[in-house]
């Protein structure tokens, strides 16, 4: 198939970028989206041009690196699929494809389609630690966890931190990401000790990073390659409300507390 690509090209963080058009003439339906970009890049290298920079690592839909907006949709048109797992058979011959980086103040573009998503790392860091006992491996089932809670935690933990929720959100809000991380630990007995502090700190860091607010538009849910639902945002809101109202929980935890855990 023959395609026309419109790709965002930007030399570095400082230089302003722009959309450029490239033909992609030898595209097989069996290629993944990233393989298609690889062949386009080979052509660019042969003609002495700078190849299109994009993030990728596992290429099997588990690392969350392959961040790109394809025709205005995070990770492209296929539901529940990362860009690396998207195949060219989802497009038709002669199609115009717009490829842009995630757009958010908190995710500055480093080069072409590559953005700096370390804001997510800082949100995770702000969440702090989980109190678990050190020592030998605990016995299986020593800590009873209801099946529903384990399932919820697993569902939330399937977030790969790709940033599609931020990219798709009209407000560039990271609330789906934060809510998945908050719910993941809040569903487990191990996450209870610091539960109330964690949600407040993570929301605080989220805001500091310059993400927008959640307006319950639910575009994030549609964009998430892992099917994380907005029910987690409702859970985050619940935890935020109860934590904010419980004055007793607003102790000033010090590093020393960790040793007690």
């Amino acid at each position, binding site marked *: 198939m023959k395609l026309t690509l419109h790709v965002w090209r930007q030399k570095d963080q400082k230089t302003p970028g722009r959309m450029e058009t490239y033909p992609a003439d030898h595209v097989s339906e069996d290629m993944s989206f990233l393989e298609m970009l690889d062949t386009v890049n080979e052509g660019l290298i042969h003609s002495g041009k700078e190849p299109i920079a994009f993030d990728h690592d596992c290429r099997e839909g588990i690392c969350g690196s392959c961040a790109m907006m394809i025709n205005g949709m995070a990770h492209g048109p296929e539901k529940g699929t990362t860009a690396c797992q998207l195949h060219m058979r989802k497009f038709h011959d002669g199609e115009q494809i*717009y490829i*842009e980086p995630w*757009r958010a103040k908190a995710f500055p573009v480093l080069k072409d389609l590559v953005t700096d998503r370390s804001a997510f790392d800082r949100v995770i*860091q702000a969440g702090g630690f989980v109190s678990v006992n050190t020592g030998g491996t605990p016995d299986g089932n020593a800590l009873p966890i209801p099946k529903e809670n384990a399932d919820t935690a697993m569902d939330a933990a399937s977030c790969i931190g790709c940033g599609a929720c931020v990219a798709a959100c009209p407000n560039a809000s990271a609330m789906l990401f934060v809510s998945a991380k908050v719910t993941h630990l809040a569903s487990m007995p191990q996450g209870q000790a610091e539960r109330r502090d964690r949600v407040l700190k993570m929301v605080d860091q989220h805001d500091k990073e310059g993400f*927008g607010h959640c307006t319950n538009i639910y575009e994030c849910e*549609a964009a998430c390659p892992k099917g994380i639902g907005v029910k987690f945002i409702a859970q985050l809101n619940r935890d*935020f409300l109860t934590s904010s109202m419980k004055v007793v929980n*607003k102790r000033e935890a010090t590093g020393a507390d960790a040793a007690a855990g």
Partner: protein
Amino acid sequence: MSSTAPTKRSQPTNTLPSGKGVYDWVKPFLTTTVGMKVTTAITGTALTLFVIAHLIGNLKIYDGRDSLNAYAHFLKSLGPWLWVARIGLLVAFTLHLVFALYLKKRSSDARPVKYAYKQTVQASWASRTMPWTGLVILAFVLFHLAHFTLGMVGTTDARQEMARKIVQVGYMDLIDDKGRPDVYSMVVAGFSNNIVCVCYVIAQLLLMVHLSHGIASVFQTLGLNTPRIQPALKRLAWGIAILIAIGNIGIVASVRLSWLGDSYVPITRVGDAPPAPVSQPVGEQATPPKKN
């Protein structure tokens, strides 16, 4: 995630964003994105309840002039309590508006470079236009207050109580046969103007759009939404929004279709000369104004 994060040593580890005082207690609701959204949800709920109560009160117009005027008179007679309610509404309205617009400003800053290819997958039109429908409602509320609370928009024909001359007066100068402000005639006169009616209908339709997202959104923001009830909440939101629109537009339509109001000429005391007692035949003066 894409790159290694620098750990900020300058910032104390594990310090909570808020402390122990009363201000610290409300601070999350005034400063964080999640908390400010909760505040807009609570004030939005208060405003919606007001709109419903306001509509139910106005439905008294179908019960006739006396009923509506008596109700308006009752509201006025609440004295200081009316002001408590008005100030409460003003606070709710202001918080709702200021926080919603502040958050909107923040979120446009959160995406300085827009996408070349714009696309949405499942967002409703209503959810994406909340600030714009809200601003139109703000403009409408100001107009509505000028129109019916202050009577600054338009005048109407009225007959002087004593001198019985037809004069042009403001809505605030209309009285009924019991000497109360004639709210009924004011509404009928107010909706005799085409442009005013179009403004009311457009504003009510946009309020409907605003509420169709807003009412369902409140449940999510307050953490009461679950996937199981989400479709029901959407239907509930549309149901309430449509009922409010039908109720309010119905009053405008009823006036336009002459189901309300009639050939009755409202009365006023403006410019009314007290009749000369000697030349006035006895009995004339006591005749009540013609009722319909």
